[in-house]
């Protein structure tokens, strides 16, 4: 048996004492200051020239609700297009084939290098350059009829998003240990199968937080499609205030809906993250 060391002289006996909570008076002070500032801002808005009754009336107006539905539809479709393009371009970017690598790099360079609003205007006005478009001998149509606000917005937002998403996906794929690719090769997998079965599922775990970020950005970027007459929520709010001059009230209505959609997205992202965390030890909780 080992003898327990005894308390020597000079060490006070602290057995049985508890650790007291620190007084966090600075936190209380900061919180109080914030409340005061918020109250002041709230008071300013309440006394400002805002007719809150208009906000309430238009919050659930049919045109506004149609607008937010269009916003969500466009955000989801454009993001889906962006992810498909992003994955394909990321795979091309990491290919041993220099032609594919160059094409991917050129795509990213072009669509990240020009403003999104400019790209939207270009797509929408494509008819000025190509009056008719189509596949020779198979099908053709007038560009004016084809390039509706919807299709222009989808192509503009989706293709632009693909350029950003490709870099997110590439980062995710590079984060997977090289040994995983070797192990996949060792059981006879080719490059694409190894990417699809082994590398991408592991990359997803890393990629979902930044993709969530990108999706939130996309929800708000759809508002740019108002310049090409796509009837999303901001465009419809603008149309109303052109008629009734209640500018701030309708901007508040649109802002409320954007905030609500983005707030719903965050828990959805958590669910996805949990799905792709299979097999990994939880870092949090």
């Amino acid at each position, binding site marked *: 048996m080992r003898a327990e060391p005894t308390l020597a002289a000079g060490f006070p006996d602290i057995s049985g004492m508890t650790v007291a909570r620190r007084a966090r008076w600075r936190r209380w002070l900061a919180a109080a200051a914030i409340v005061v500032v918020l109250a002041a801002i709230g008071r300013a808005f309440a006394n400002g020239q805002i007719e809150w009754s208009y906000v309430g009336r238009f919050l659930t107006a049919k045109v506004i609700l149609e607008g937010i539905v269009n916003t969500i539809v466009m955000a989801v479709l454009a993001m889906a297009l962006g992810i498909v393009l992003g994955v394909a371009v990321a795979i091309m970017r990491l290919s041993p084939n220099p032609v594919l690598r160059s094409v991917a790099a050129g795509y990213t360079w072009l669509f990240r290098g020009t403003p999104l609003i400019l790209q939207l205007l270009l797509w929408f006005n494509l008819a000025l350059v190509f009056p008719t478009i189509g596949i020779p001998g198979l099908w053709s149509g007038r560009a004016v009829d084809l390039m509706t606000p919807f299709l222009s917005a989808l192509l503009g937002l989706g293709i632009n998003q693909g350029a950003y998403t490709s870099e997110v996906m590439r980062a995710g794929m590079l984060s997977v*240990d090289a*040994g*995983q690719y*070797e*192990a*996949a*090769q*060792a*059981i*006879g*997998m*080719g*490059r694409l*199968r190894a990417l699809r*079965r*082994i590398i991408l*599922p*592991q990359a997803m*775990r890393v990629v979902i937080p930044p993709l969530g970020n990108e999706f939130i950005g996309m929800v708000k970027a759809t508002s740019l499609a108002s310049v090409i007459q796509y009837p999303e929520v901001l465009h419809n709010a603008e149309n109303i205030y052109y008629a009734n001059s209640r500018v701030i009230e309708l901007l508040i209505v649109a802002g409320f809906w954007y905030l609500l959609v983005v707030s719903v997205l965050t828990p959805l992202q958590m669910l996805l993250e949990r799905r*792709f965390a*299979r*097999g*990994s*030890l939880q870092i949090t909780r």
Partner: protein
Amino acid sequence: MTRPLVAIRSVSRSFGEFQALKQVSLDVRAGEVLCLIGASGSGKTTLLRCINQLTSIDSGGVWLDGELLGVRQVSGRLHRLAPREIARQRLKTGMVFQRFNLFPHKTALENITEGPVQVQGRKPEDARSDAMLLLRRVGLAAKADAYPAQLSGGQQQRVAIARALAMKPMLMLFDEPTSALDPELVGEVLSVMKELARSGMTMMVVTHELGFAREVADTVVYMDHGAIVEAGPAAAVLGSPREARTKSFLSAVI
């Protein structure tokens, strides 16, 4: 004498200025257990990786089961094989890595069935029942549904061995299979390998476990600076080495 299963002839490989392999030639017979020993950087891992083409070779040739690996001879010139052909050739070998490299997003069972189902196109039910047999063989039937992160290093490496065996390879390659393990977990992996050796599997093992080499290996190859210094029966190379470099390596290790 019958044709060797693996014939390595004058294989060289450089990484930039560093010559990892210098004109290495070696035969491995079917059913033979061959241990590659030597200091790190001596080229033993590179040699192993050349056999399943995770590393390409600069010159020389490797024949596996009579087939030249990685290249094809057409009218006096060598042409590199298409990736699909290389993948097919890899199916003849199973590889066990130092760091296990199990797929972390798949359970032990899914790790084993992935190759047979996805690559060899076997029926999932058949692959699963075969995988269960393999898990039983490595003593992990109870861990079929565990994810790699829930397994110890020794258990992960045993699953990795089962994953390689599931492809029914004719040659098993082990790249320092116990070097990343805690000392108390080395034994369970070595005993699985011993059982495999007894079953008649042809094995090439890069290892620092001289006890394992002495007990299990038919042949021990000592490499230094990218070349084979001494090769022969395990008892001879480990017990009474002829070369001075082998002697000094062995005395430094033991």
